[in-house]
């Protein structure tokens, strides 16, 4: 443990002295964000846009999850509840009520926020391992609800959701035009998460993660901070889910099942929890793996399990965590 703490401070140290720009961002972070944006802009001309949109939705989902786990120190094993419920609500709003895509996404995201507020308020009453079990149980409740509720379409889900016209003007039907909306949502989402992490709120959050009794003794209401970050994380996970519903024009039980909660944990763990960019890499790797190994059936599950085991035993810092240690810069 002592060795871990030391490396963490070594890594963290340059951040304070690193040159920052007008946005208060260290230069290498700015470069990475610019690089990601450039990749995002060039991407659809090189790779299949739907694949990239899937990666982006899951990257946002994983980053939202990482906000809670990596910076709040809270392991939610039920983030599929927020991702999936937002996916259902926005799909239903777009299909049954004919709402425009931005309103459908907004409605889905709001649903996730409300759900996050209710479940979060209950879940933060327990800590550590119990917190994980409580969040998982609530997510399973949402799953059973989705199986039975009349509007979710049961096993079929909500299919052929119309992508509609953005603000009633821009047709999102073609993949390319939807792609840039998804890119904008994801990128703004990531910037928002970055801002939250590096705000005074984020600093207090990290203090609570590292030593809760001490933060309380310093006068911070730990539970309010935990609830706030839980709701933020659930909301952003919902944003990812709602966007995903438009991309695939589908909301289904897969989105709310516990395997989805497990996948987002895997993405974050593999990429590096508590790193800014790790979950993005983790999401890209996991989604790519699912795509290329889809024909192998159950082997995907087995490989995911093996990655879990190997990551936990040998690779707890994740890809970006290790990279950050080599470069001696927090990523």
């Amino acid at each position, binding site marked *: 443990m002592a060795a871990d703490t030391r490396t963490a401070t070594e890594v963290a140290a340059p951040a304070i002295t690193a040159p920052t720009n007008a946005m208060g961002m260290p230069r290498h972070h700015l470069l990475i964000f610019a690089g990601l944006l450039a990749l995002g802009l060039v991407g659809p001309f090189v790779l299949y846009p739907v694949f990239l949109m899937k990666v982006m939705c899951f990257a946002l989902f994983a980053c939202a999850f990482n906000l809670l786990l990596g910076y709040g120190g809270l392991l939610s094993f039920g983030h599929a509840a927020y991702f999936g419920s937002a996916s259902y609500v926005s799909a239903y709003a777009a299909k049954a009520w004919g709402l425009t895509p931005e309103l459908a996404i907004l409605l889905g995201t709001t649903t996730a926020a409300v759900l996050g507020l209710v479940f979060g308020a209950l879940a933060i009453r327990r800590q550590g391992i119990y917190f994980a*079990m409580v969040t998982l149980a609530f997510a399973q409740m949402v799953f059973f609800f989705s199986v039975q509720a009349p509007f979710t379409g049961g096993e079929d889900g909500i299919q052929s959701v119309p992508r509609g016209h953005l603000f009633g003007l821009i047709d999102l039907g073609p993949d390319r035009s939807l792609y840039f909306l998804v890119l904008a949502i994801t990128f703004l989402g990531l910037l928002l998460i970055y801002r939250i992490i590096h705000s005074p709120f984020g600093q207090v959050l990290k203090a609570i993660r590292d030593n809760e009794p001490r933060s309380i003794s310093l006068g911070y209401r730990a539970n309010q901070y935990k609830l706030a970050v839980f709701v933020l994380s659930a909301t952003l996970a919902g944003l990812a889910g709602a966007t995903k519903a438009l991309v695939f024009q589908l909301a289904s039980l897969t989105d709310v099942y516990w395997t989805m909660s497990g996948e987002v944990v895997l993405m974050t763990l593999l990429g590096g929890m508590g790193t800014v960019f790790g979950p993005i890499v983790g999401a890209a790797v996991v989604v790519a793996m699912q795509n290329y190994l889809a024909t192998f059936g159950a082997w995907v599950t*087995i490989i995911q399990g093996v990655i879990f085991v190997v990551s936990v035993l040998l690779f707890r810092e994740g890809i970006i965590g290790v990279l950050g240690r080599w470069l001696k810069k927090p990523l």
Partner: protein
Amino acid sequence: MFELLGIPPQALFGQLLLGLINGSFYALLSLGLAIIFGLLNIINFTHGAQYMMGAFVAWMLLNYLGINYWAALVLAPVIVGITGVIIERLLISRLYHLDHLYGLLLTFGLALIIQGLFRNEYGISGLPYQIPSQLSGGMNLGFMFLPNYRGWVVVASLVVCLATWFVIEKTRLGAYLRAATENPTLVGAFGINVPRLITLTYGFGVALAAFAGVLAAPIYSVNPNMGADLIIVVFAVVVIGGMGSILGSIVTGFGLGLIEGLTRVFYPEGSAVVIFVIMAIVLLVKPAGLFGRAA
């Protein structure tokens, strides 16, 4: 025939029996989880997969080696328990110095691997397992028809649960175990091999899950996914009961099974979520759980 609240007694008692059977599985599984958590401080996410392995090992013993149900009831828990010992020695024991959450993640990964392997080999359609001939048929109790096997499941799990309680609370071995739960360093200083105790405890907790799996095999079809959803309900049971007390786990398990059965009679739509709703209420009223100690 008389009726209760407009529900025919056959339906009411039938559902109560079904609830009691589910309660048997909740009790056996949450008991194993509680014992493992007490000493290892990890939540064993693999528990559902190990319950499934119990059912599969019983099926394999019957179909490949011709070993009958009664022998499988003993052999399958031992075999699965041994795999648990191996898993603990090779993998879990490397995580004791880390945050407890890593144990959860590791065992989750193991559950994915085990379920995936069985799904690859046997598909997801489920394999039948015959009720042993001694327990086929049933009894007419006057107010309901009791299939013998279902009665046996309730009795067997109750006996095993109470025997476990007795061993932990009343014997010398149990005293070591409880002492090691309180303070492993001190118990080690008294010359007790704590790492071995931990390994055996994990093996025993896993064996309990496998025992539940063998009991379940003739009732539900033997299916690679049979433990995956069950374990999440058991987590909720554990949160409701709190993991501080052995007897508490048993009572909570059976009690929640009955409540679930009653819900199925009076409000069938709510039966899948009633345990989670109770969990939410317990979190509001008594966050440490019904039998738990406040942290």
